[in-house]
């Protein structure tokens, strides 16, 4: 059964989520890259808890944020369920109720500002790669990216070469307001 807490939020927690047909076979977890990295992370277990209605414990936990949304679970599920879709919907619930995820709320706010200002979700400065993922040569080249961006005719502050006209931005803002986004 689909837990009532999830019902109004997202169409994807409806029939296509599979919360009414998951058979707990574990093919999702076996196919999940995150499950082999984060101890105890299991999309199958998330489905089980969601089916049992343990929404509270799910949204308060950190597992929800360990999924990388590669959708291997949904692609391989023999019952055509989508654990990743359920996770997407639960993340929205968590944003409203879990006090320990301010770092995610920062991303939420950043996206909101970007969208209202430019109609873009991600801008060049939205994501900064952590230094320790990069080798020394890559680090050097990564630092020079702003300059090469300009060479291509793209500004440092926009992901678009030509920005969205102001009158269209106004329509975008109306859509975002009318859907209670801000």
């Amino acid at each position: 059964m689909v837990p009532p807490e999830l019902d109004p939020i997202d169409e994807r927690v409806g029939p296509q989520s599979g919360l009414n047909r998951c058979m707990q076979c574990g093919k999702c977890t076996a196919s999940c890259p995150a499950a082999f990295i984060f101890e105890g992370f299991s999309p199958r277990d998330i489905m089980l808890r969601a089916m049992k209605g343990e929404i509270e414990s799910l949204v308060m936990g950190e597992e929800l944020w360990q999924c990388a949304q590669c959708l291997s679970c949904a692609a391989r599920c023999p019952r055509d369920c989508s654990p990743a879709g359920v996770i997407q919907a639960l993340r929205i619930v968590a944003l409203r109720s879990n006090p320990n995820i301010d770092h995610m709320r920062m991303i939420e706010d950043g996206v909101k500002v970007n969208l209202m200002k430019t109609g873009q979700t991600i801008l060049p400065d939205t994501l900064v790669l952590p230094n320790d993922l990069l080798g020394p040569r890559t680090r050097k080249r990564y630092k020079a990216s702003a300059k090469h961006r300009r060479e291509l005719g793209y500004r440092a502050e926009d992901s678009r070469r030509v920005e969205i006209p102001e009158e269209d931005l106004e329509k975008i803002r109306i859509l975002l307001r009318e859907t209670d986004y801000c």
Partner: protein
Amino acid sequence: MYATVPKDMPKDDYYLLKSCQAGSWYPGIEKSLRYVLSTIDANFLDDPKQSSCIGCANHIGVTPFLPIVALNARNISLASLSGKRNVVCNCPTCYSNLKDCKNILDGSSAMRDRALKAMEKAGLEYNDSITITHVSEAYLANLDRIKAKAKYSLKGIRAVTHHGCHYAKIYYRDVASGNFERPTVIDDVLSGLGAEVVDYPERSLCCGLGFHHIMLSPDYTRAVTRRKYSGIIEADPDLLVTMCAGCTLSLDMCQEKVLQELGHKKDIPVVNISELMAILLGADPYLVAGIDLHGVPVEPLLEKIGVEGTR
């Protein structure tokens, strides 16, 4: 036995759905895409009015679905009314996210009604007569035109491919070539241009980006790119071709360190399919494809292909 779903891939009249990730990280992908479509004389519209699809925030789980559906109702209508009805996405996440939204809008639900009400408030009419494809499918559909105009060939190049998960695994029935476990859209394009495309272990594995993971949980990115490259190096390729700006970022930027850890000495240039097509059609590798923005130098590959003017 997953029969490849024969898909009527549109060859012309494209509406470019620009990706904010590509524009932010590898603007050369977008520039290359325009270059390719102009060079092969395909009709397309680069509409400045189009907004971001919010697909990445949708997956990160920081934006509710309703505003996403509403914004894409507008994008779909823009394309429908423009006369260029074949929406071609630069990014697999745009591709699947747009299909998600179209499904909601084509159905009947409270969410659809609310999204359309918002459209009405914004003075917009919902209009849907579009097709949705990924740009790599457009290249496959136009392979003959690309081959006819190509200045260089990939003969003698050993390539591996990585198809975006959001292209293959969400609308898995719609994969244009191969199947979701082993999509071969880019493979077909590359081998059509002379490359030797080889398989590798972990072919269907994620690129490691995971959106917020690369920033907030780099353990994930580190472990997955390592697993991915441990498979790729078994094929010992000259080139890794991607179809998504996000996959390019993760596999390109993390490669130096990962290959070092794995003890593999040879660089494997990571190039997006649009960049590669543009270069083969004679585009400037720096001013159009923007290869300077890549973590792994692309020049050695270009020299092998015989591209002139590398620095």
